[in-house]
């Protein structure tokens, strides 16, 4: 067991974790934040995407001990004071989700990307989301939602 201290959605947590514990399992099981999903075992799907120190990361590829001292944002921390983030709003308005399983990871990837590139083209959005798989939407409305969010955040 190793003691770590991680700030998740603005709340500081001190916890003992096994060295092999993945960050996603720490988030889901120890912090009981179950919004971040696990869709694969090969770092392929992106369902587990979170922000770590402001950058999107697949939380199944990070050990909990590697997050020691980090600031983590999960989907639960995306809205502020009950107001949805523009990316959340856009996913709702553009029908960017069906079953919603990929959605938390997809939105976190989008938030991380729009921070780097606030006014992307459609092709850029498609490339940026390459690490996040969705089986329901054919990505059409996800891409639309990210572009709409970029517009909204720019205006």
């Amino acid at each position, binding site marked *: 067991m190793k003691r770590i201290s991680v700030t998740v959605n603005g709340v500081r947590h001190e916890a003992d974790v096994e060295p092999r514990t993945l960050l996603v399992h720490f988030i889901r099981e120890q912090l009981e934040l179950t919004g971040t999903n696990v869709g694969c075992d090969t770092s392929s799907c992106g369902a587990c995407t979170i922000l770590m120190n402001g950058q999107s990361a697949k939380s199944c590829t990070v050990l909990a001990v590697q997050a020691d001292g980090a600031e983590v944002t999960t989907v639960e921390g995306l809205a502020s004071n009950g107001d949805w983030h523009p990316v959340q709003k856009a996913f709702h308005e553009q029908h960017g989700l069906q079953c919603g399983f990929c959605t938390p990871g997809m939105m976190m990837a989008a938030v991380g990307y729009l921070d780097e590139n606030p006014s992307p083209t459609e092709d850029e959005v498609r490339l940026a989301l390459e690490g996040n798989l969705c089986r*329901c939407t054919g990505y059409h409305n996800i891409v639309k939602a990210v572009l709409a969010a970029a517009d909204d955040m720019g205006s």
Partner: protein
Amino acid sequence: MATAEKYVGGGVPRKEDPKLITGQGQFLEGLTLPGMLHAALLRSPHGSARITSVDVSAAAAAEGVVAAYSGADLADEWAAGLPMAWPVTDDIRIPDHWPVAQDVARYVGDAVAVVVATSRNAALDAAELVEVDYDVLDAVVDVEAAVADGAPRVHESFDDNKSYTWALTNGEVDEAFAKADVVVKERYTQPRLIPNAMEPRAVVAQPVPSTGDFTVWSTTQIPHVAKVLFALTLGIPESQIRVIAPSDVGGGFGSKLNVYAEEALCIALARRLGKPVKWVAGRSEGYLATIHGRDQVQEIEIAATSDGDILGYRVHILAAMGAYLQLVAPGVPLLGAFLYCGCYGGEAYHFECTGVFTNTTPTDAYRGAGRPEATYAIERAIDSLAREVGVDPAEIRRRNFLPAGDMVQSPGGLAFDSADYEPALDRALELLDYDGFRSDQAERREGGGSRQIGVGFSSYVEICGLAPSQVLASLKYAAGGWDAATVRMLPTGKAEVVTGSSPHGQGHVTSWSQIAADALGIPYEDVTVLHGDTHVAPHGMNTYGSRSLAVAGVAVHNACDRVVDKARGLAAHLLEVAPEDLEYEAGTFSVKGVPDRTKSMPELAFAAWTAHSLPEDSEPGLEASCVYDPPNFTFPFGTHVAVVEVDTETGAVDLVRYIAVDDCGPVINPVIVDGQVHGGVAQGIAAALYEEATYAEDGTLETSSMVNYLVPSAAEFPSFETDRTVTPSTSNPMGVKGIGEAGTIGSAPAVINAIVDALSHLGVTDVPMPASPERVWRAIQSAQGGEA
């Protein structure tokens, strides 16, 4: 009934979204119960092997482990093997299928032992400690090899690997072929596909040992069907099983339309151990243990005149069943059996399909189930015919379309409702600018560069709304085709809709709310939709085969009608007039000619609840149910168009445009319908260009994880262009048809036809799916007479 359409037809944002976008989705992996144990399975690494011994003692002694069992240890848990509900012929061979193999493991992934521990990690670690001795046997993984003489047998008790042969003949087939000027004969393979719902499967079974009751949570599309089948498999009275499909299930596409070993196993373990037991699939484990789709070899012949008028069809299919028969697997080819003539005419039709065992993960219904395969064959073959007789591919379709009309007889034997195929083709051609495209293409060809463009068409018709029950009976399907709804007004004027459908991404909560809000004249926000829990929604046939709106949705609509009827009686009583003297509009009854004498639905709901003054013969409460069994299938159709650019030097294919014009009848929520088309189209394109599950000869699944099975990302698709024509079905009072599978059914042949079109000047006539750069390059080389 006068219904003001305030919500129906509008793109109302979904009620499902708020919890899903804030991380409050209730997916099953998040469920934890007090005292819950975790199961992990040890699976056979061999395609075919006799199990000579299983030693679980080291696993049982490991830290955290509560119990470990072999298949033999659990043999007395099963009242019956895992169920198969579609015995398509009288002489079909149905093998025993135990949740844990008892003597022979028949595919890589067949369970041979199970470990139960206090944590998932402890169970997974201990499963590695189970010692199994195998006698490895020869495996057969290829459907054609499996029917060859001397092939290794998947089931020793059967003489060969054929499960069944099912045939259908209409008209004088030999005559049609004898008089034909032209016969085209094509052979296609349908690659094996892995459905890849993004949420892996999971199950939790909770026992109440003192009463013998069980609650089972499962990531299933079919909670009601599963309840019946759990009862039969486990010998538990059905009345003591409650099945809950969580309010959020992360996609299915058919892969959760089943009764799986792990579901039965968790219930059995919960019964033995008296504790809740949970199992969650890892993605790679799911690749072995969740059904695959397709895996067919098809031969199709079309007889035609020299003008390209089709006279007859002959179709032979070999369909891989995998190692066992899963829930509806034998019937999957039958869902396509009537559609190898597409939306075209002709006088004669022969179809024959053999279901074949192979040492592979069982197949079953994957989005479209039988219909994508049929549509692929006819839409590819009609292009061959077009080339053969020198007719434009759009024109040959138009020439052979069945006439517009209702209940139009198809050579396949079914009568199609709402047939009107030309307008969808016309609209697609218009969106494409067909003439413009052909002149661009001619220019490119003249230029002679390496980047050539092509267009592909697919005009499909499909079968939806799986029902009516009587027709399903004639196909030997063991379940009914009805669905159920209860609509109840609550005392405060809100409404509850209880549905037998079981959504897992389709947005039924939103669409059913739209239907009920309009019918009852109350705000959309005031409707709650309850689903998925057999204690809450006692009746249902659930969600698959694009049936939900056309069956369960119509049941909601009809139940609302009945609520309004009952409300009319109460309103008449309270207003002291005859029921006929009332007008109903948007939730308000008013006395004809006296428009200020009214009773609103909320007022009547309250009056029905207090029951202070009711009409004679009337009971308190304002609620009605409907179990709807449609008189016919519905037949959505459309034309899809793909435009590709192919690099003739590398074989790389770039999908440049994708146009889908679909006709699913009137639309409840156009935004949701477009979304269904997008997702469906993407899965068909994925099959055409990227996805294929492959096995090594010894039965090892080579595409064993998401790393080597290519699920495409956003970067692989263009935006899609969608449009609709609207021809209402006559099979139900709403005229609706179904849209969940149309995209998958229409898309794959459009893409491959486009690739062939781009390369036709080089002599290419076929590229197999998935059309990887290597395959495209080889097709070019072999057409050019080079090495391939």
